[in-house]
Every structure is written in structure tokens, then in C-alpha cells.
């Protein structure tokens, strides 16, 4: 058990270090100078620009040797300091991300969990009969194959533009500031529905398919046959199969997280939902290296952490890992 976690932890630590390094390195080894852009953006008078240039180079810590920058990056990272945004100068990147994170949680957590639960239930249901399987499964495949942003666009157009049912941009009404009032919560909910739905629907298809396939395998497993031979009711056999099929789906969830976050990114862009995905787009469009770095780092850490938590949880639910816990998976 300890060894298992040791190994997992090692992988996570290495991944983390590599990811952070890549994250740090890419902007620095790409052509172009962020400060030039900041200055170009400011539309400064040429005469003043020269002075401000060196001033900013220092402010962003770009005036020291590269290894020193790398070191400083790590030191700052452990102080929770991700630097200063170029785009939203002089706001600290950390502050900007902190403002965005609640929306990601609001959107992703329910979308991931609900689609996972519903998809699994539904997949198990689909595996029940040939007829259901032949009608529902292809639908689930189609859903799974739908690009997130396209579904988002479709929903925005249908429910928002055509039918005027729901708002399709932002996280809450422009006439409000966040507060604990009913009208605010209502507004929040209304704005949440469409982006949530597009995330939910696509993932739902994926999980349903996964579950269906797993269950079919489980129903063919020896223990299922044994139970059937002993006359156990279908209900019991199915519930065993479902439980066992759920386990790989948990690891599946961990592995899918990265992809889901990618999907959320596209969705947030379609719905101008002010989460990290939206920030990343802005960071890219505005060449805000530091914000881009910070946001990506945040996602990477988030995904790694979630992965780790799922790994932990998995050990608790699957006795095979607890008892066996040897090299192979």
C-alpha cells in the first residue's frame, strides 16, 4: 500500500516538476519580448517608452540570467506568487485566477459529477437489452463525438437567440454585483444552465458508452455466470456487474479530467463564462505570458490533484488494489 502510494506520488511529483518547467520554459524560449508588447499596447510616446522599458524589465524579473529566472519562478511559486499580469497590469496573476476559479468549480464540478453519475446509470440501463442498446448507444456515441463548442453554439443559438429562453453569456446579469440575494442566485443559475448543459451532454455520452461496454464485459465474467447458474435474480447479477464496472470508470474519470478541462475551456469561450478557460483565451489573445503560465499551471495542478484524490478514493473502493498492490495495473 505504502509502496503503491509512493509510486503514485513519485509520478505526480515528476509530472508536476516537468509540467511546471515546460510551462515556465515555453514562453521564455519563444520569440518576442513580453515587455515590448506591454509598451506597444500602452501606446506610449516613443520618448518615454525607452525609460519605461527598462523599468518593466526589472518589474517582471526579466533582467536576470535565465537560470536565476527559473529559480525565482519556483521560489515565487511556493509563495503562491505567479507574477504580475501583462494584460491586466498591475494585477497579480494569482488574484485574477482566484476570481475565476469559483466559476470553474461552479461549472465543472456539477458537470463532471452529474454526467458521470447519470452517464453510468444510463449506460448500465442501455446494456440491459439489445433493443435499448441499439437505439441509445449510437446516440451516446454521437453525443460523445460532439465538439463541445459546437454544442454550445447550437444551444446558444436555439435556447438563447431563437427562443429567448436563457441568457448565454457571462456568469450573471450585468445589472448585478455578486451578493447573497435571491435575484442574484437566480441570475447565476440562469447563466449557468447552458454552459453546464453543453458540458454535461457531451460527457454524459462518453460515460454512458464506457459503462455500457464495461457492463457487457462484466456480465460475461465468470462470477456473473456463477451467480446466474445458482439462480440469482438478474437484479443481483446486474448490481454486481454495475459495481464492478464502476471501478474502471473511476480511473477513467481521473484520466479524462484533462480532456474535460479542455472541453470546459471551449465551452467557457462560447459562453463568455468567466472561468479559467476564458482567462486562458484572453491571455493568449493578449499575449499575457504570465497569466497564461499561471492559468495553465493552475489547471495542471488542479488536474493532478484531482487525479491524486481519485487514486486515493480508488484504493478505498477496490479491494484488488488494496490487497494486490503490485506492479502491474
Amino acid at each position, binding site marked *: 500500500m505504502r509502496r503503491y502510494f509512493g509510486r503514485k506520488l513519485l509520478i505526480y511529483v515528476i509530472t508536476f516538476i516537468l509540467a511546471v518547467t515546460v510551462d515556465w520554459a515555453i514562453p521564455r524560449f519563444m*520569440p*518576442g*519580448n513580453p515587455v*515590448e*508588447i*506591454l*509598451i*506597444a*499596447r*500602452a*501606446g*506610449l*510616446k*516613443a*520618448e*518615454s*517608452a*525607452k*525609460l*519605461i*522599458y527598462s*523599468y518593466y524589465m526589472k*518589474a517582471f524579473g526579466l533582467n536576470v540570467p535565465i537560470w536565476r529566472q527559473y529559480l525565482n519562478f519556483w521560489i515565487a511559486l511556493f509563495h503562491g506568487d505567479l507574477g504580475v*499580469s501583462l*494584460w*491586466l*497590469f*498591475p*494585477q497579480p496573476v494569482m488574484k*485574477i485566477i482566484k*476570481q*475565476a476559479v469559483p466559476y470553474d468549480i461552479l461549472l465543472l464540478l456539477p458537470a463532471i459529477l452529474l454526467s458521470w453519475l447519470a452517464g453510468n446509470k444510463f449506460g448500465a440501463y442501455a446494456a440491459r437489452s439489445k433493443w435499448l442498446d441499439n437505439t441509445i448507444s449510437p446516440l451516446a456515441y454521437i453525443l460523445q463525438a460532439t465538439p463541445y463548442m459546437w454544442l454550445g453554439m447550437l444551444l446558444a443559438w436555439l435556447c*438563447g*437567440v431563437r427562443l429567448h429562453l436563457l441568457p*448565454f*453569456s*457571462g*456568469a450573471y446579469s*450585468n*445589472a*448585478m*454585483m*455578486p*451578493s447573497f*440575494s435571491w*435575484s*442574484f442566485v437566480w441570475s447565476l443559475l440562469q447563466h449557468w444552465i447552458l454552459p453546464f448543459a453543453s458540458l454535461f451532454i457531451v460527457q454524459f455520452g462518453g460515460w454512458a458508452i464506457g459503462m455500457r461496454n464495461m457492463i457487457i464485459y462484466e456480465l460475461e465474467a465468470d462470477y456473473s455466470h456463477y451467480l446466474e447458474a445458482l439462480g440469482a435474480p438478474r437484479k443481483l447479477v446486474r448490481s454486481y456487474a454495475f459495481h464492478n464496472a464502476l471501478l474502471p470508470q473511476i480511473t477513467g474519470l481521473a484520466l479524462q479530467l484533462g480532456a474535460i478541462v479542455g472541453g470546459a475551456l471551449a465551452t467557457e469561450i462560447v459562453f*463568455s463564462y*468567466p472561468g479559467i478557460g*476564458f482567462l486562458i483565451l*484572453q491571455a*493568449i*489573445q*493578449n*499575449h499575457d505570458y504570465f497569466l497564461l503560465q499561471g492559468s495553465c499551471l493552475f489547471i495542471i495542478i488542479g488536474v493532478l490533484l484531482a487525479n491524486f484524490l481519485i487514486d486515493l478514493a480508488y484504493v478505498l473502493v477496490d479491494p484488488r488494489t488494496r490487497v494486490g498492490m503490485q506492479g502491474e495495473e
Partner: protein
Amino acid sequence: ATTEFPRSQTLYTGGKQWGPPSNWNPFMTGNYATGTIGLCYETLFLYDPLTAKFTPWLASSGKWTNSTTYRLVLRSGLAWSDGKALTVDDVKFTIELGKKTTLNFSSLWSWLTSITKVNSTTLDFKFKTPLYQEWDNYLYNLPIVPQHIWSTKSLTDVATGANDKPVGSGAYLYNTYDQTKMVWEKNVNWWATKALKLSVAPKYVIDLVNTSNENSLGLVLQGQEDLNNNYLPGISTLLTGGYALHTYYPSAPYDIAANTAWLDINLQKKPMSDLAFRKALAYGINVADIVSRDYNNMVSAADPTGLLPMWNKYVDQAVVKKLGITYNPAKAKQVLAAAGYKDVNHDGFVENKDGTKIALKLIVPNGWSDWMAAAQMISKSAKAVGINIVASYPDFNGYLDARLKGTFDLAIDNQANVSNSPWTYYHFIFYDQLKDIPTTQGGNYGRYNNKTAFALVTQLDKTKTTDLAAMKAVISKLQTIQLTDLPMIPLWYNGMWAQMSTTYWTNWPSSVAGKNHDLPVTWNGYWNMTAILMLTQLKAVKQP
């Protein structure tokens, strides 16, 4: 802070802010929150580019007492929003900040000698070499900040601090902000109410962050945004669609021209270094096509000099008539052929005189949709005359880099905006790039090198603004050089994009006689070009 804003008392604007408000520092010209200068901090004068008139604002008057001394008289009864009086000390302090630290106007101090307080309302500015044109520009652009607050800030904070919860003298007070908007609340104690009998109509001005063109369009169409200053593709088709939309001009080009889009040409590369080639290029670009197709006639084609229509009087028509170039594909081919550019390998494109291929890249920043389309069209019409131009979309970074380092072939550019003087325009075109390191390139990306032209620009700067004849004379010389040498090719005028919704507010600025002619634009620097007056003219629509 308030958490809900009654729609009927709120003006929603949008178009300036492409990211959440991040600072309220009026000296950080690049990205201060919408209205920081204009709604909160104010300038000494307002300038109306349509009439070319200065309106005293914080100042009650100002004039040159001799050729090197400018005397400024401040209005009395001015106050900061925290109740403290706004005095000449604040003005003096503000301008002297530029001497203490690096601010955008610090270069002023290379020709300004000193500021002396004459009395409680009067300041004298003493100049080494007065640059009259440029000084006027400062008069309506320099924000005045309160000494009692700013003197406590560190110099770093002055230059780059966020300046949360700003205290200004303007019509609006900082209320709150979030990721999607900036909220300004009416300042009931605004000095102009008493002094000028001006009162702004909206209780709240909420500037919405743009997330995308699409989003903005949706908001405007639904009446959720009252004024939008983005270029919204397709808007012209909607004006008649029953959407309660209003534009400054009732018909094309709908918007006032704000700046000139032109083609930067890298003069250090072959064959652009050849004047004949540049001429052929200028003949070969079908700007009308861009205007009608790309912009749906929301812009107009530029004058051969590229000077904005409001500077029409400075265009030397004789020079234009003699040297001006407009679209003429036949002429383009003829010029090419005459200069020895021939299609040697019969691929439909001319080759260099030495037979090498010509394949020029026209760069515009990726994602700048209207420009990308324009680049396509330029490439297409150039191909029609045998010049091989490929549109290319590096991202903004790459675009800037190529321009700064001079590695590009062709680029679209529009950095010279409407101002008090054509000097800003020519300063940009004939910027003496050789005296600057590339990082601080202030214009002239094509690396045009002509000492005479550079000298003429400086001479223009030194010309008194009242001496129209002298100005015209210099400008005429500059135009001759420009049209002879073609260091760049003017293309079209970008508009002061303004989509106004009449759902909640009416009496918007309009070209129609009898209406107010204020600029309906929330961009930086435009509040003090009369946009603030627009707010005093608006009328709320009675909602059923």
C-alpha cells in the same frame, strides 16, 4: 457598494475594455479602466475635433503671453470628490510628477523649463523650445490628480500602481467593479453642475468588458448595452432591422472617421525599396472592394494623403491632384512593366528585375477579423495586377515583433488617431526611427529615411497653432514628399465605431442638424474630446 442597478438610471457602455478593469491609474495610458480619465480624472480643456475648438474645462483660460510662456488660469470652485479643493498646486504637482518619475508625458520636460505659480488660480509655464502643436495636445490629454493623495504614493506606485478607488474631480465616482464591468456612480457634487450648468443624466455608467464581437452584438441588439464602441461586423445590415439602433451618420459610413488604416511598406527590402514598385502596388489595391465587402460601407476609402476628413483643410489639393494615386489596375500593370518587372516564368506574377521570384507577405494580427479579410482582399487585387502577396496572420506578438525589427514585407497599421493637429499624423509617418532603439519604435515602421521630412515634422511642431498658413505650408511640403516617395499607402478610415441603442436612452449624438455633435466614444482620450458632454445630453426613455 450597490448590488443591483436600476436599468432606467443606468447607461451601459462597452467597447473600450477588453479585459476586466485592472487599474485606475490615469498615467498608465495603456490599460486604465474606462473613464478613468474623463469620468473620474479631468483635463484642463476639452477638445472638439469636429470643430477644432478647445473648451475650457478645469482651466478657465490659457494663452501664450509670449512665445515661450504659457499662462494658465484655473477655474475656481473646483473640488475633488473627497471634498478637498482642486487648486493650481494640484496642476503644478501633477505635471511635475513627470519630472520625478517616468511617465508618458515625461518627455515634456525636455522642452519645458519650469512652472511658476502666479497666484491662487494662475500658473506660468516657461519653455526652452515651445512645441506649440504638442503642447495643445497635452492641454486636453493630461489628467490632473490630487496632490494630497498622490504625494503620499511611492514613485513606483505613481508610475505603475493600480490606484484602487480613485479620487478625482469628474462627473462620476468610482463605485465598484468586477470581472465583467466597471461601475461609475454620478458625482452629485460635480463642479460643472454649478459652474457650467451641466448635469450628467445616467446615475450609473457601467462599462461592460468585451468578451467577443458576437457577445457585444447580442447585447446591443437586445438593448442591454446602450453604447458600444466595437467594430461589429454585420451591424450595417441590422440598422434597419427594427433593433432600435442609432449611428452618428444615418447612412454610410455611419461613423466618424477616427484613424487611418494604411499599408506599411518595408523600404529596406527588395522590391519595396523601388519606388516604381510601390507605385504599382498603390495603383493595384482595390480599396473600394474592402470598403464595400469587408466593411459593408461602414468605413470610407482614405484620401491619397491619408489625412482624416476633419483635417481636410490641410490637404493640398494641388499636390494630391498631381501626385495622388488611386486604384487603377491597368496603370499598375503599366508601371510594373515600365519599371522592368515582368512575368518571366509565366506563373501569373511578375518577377524581380533580376528574375528572382517575388512573394510578399502581408501581415495582420491573427484574430483581427476585419483586417484579416482586408489583407485577403489586398492580396487578391494585387494578384490581379501580377503582384504576389500572401496574407499571413501571425499573432499580435509576432506582428509587433516583425514591425519593430523590420522583418516584415507589408503590414496593415493604424496608429495615428484623431487629434488636435496633423502633426501627430506626420510625426508617426516620418518618425526618425534611426535615433531610437527598435523596442521603442514610435512609428515609421517601413524605415523611411529622409532627413528633410523629419526636419519638416519638427518644424511643424514648432509652428504656432494659430498660424494656419504656416502650418499649411509645411504640411504641403510633407504631402509632396509623402506622395512622391510613397513610404506608406493610406487605405481607409477606421471609424469611431458607435452603435447606440435607443431602447433606454435617447438624444444620442448625431450628424443631423440640431442634434448634439459630441463624440459618442468611450475610448481612452475621447471623453475629453467631448464624449463627456454626450452624457449631459442623454435622456432616459420612459419605460412602460
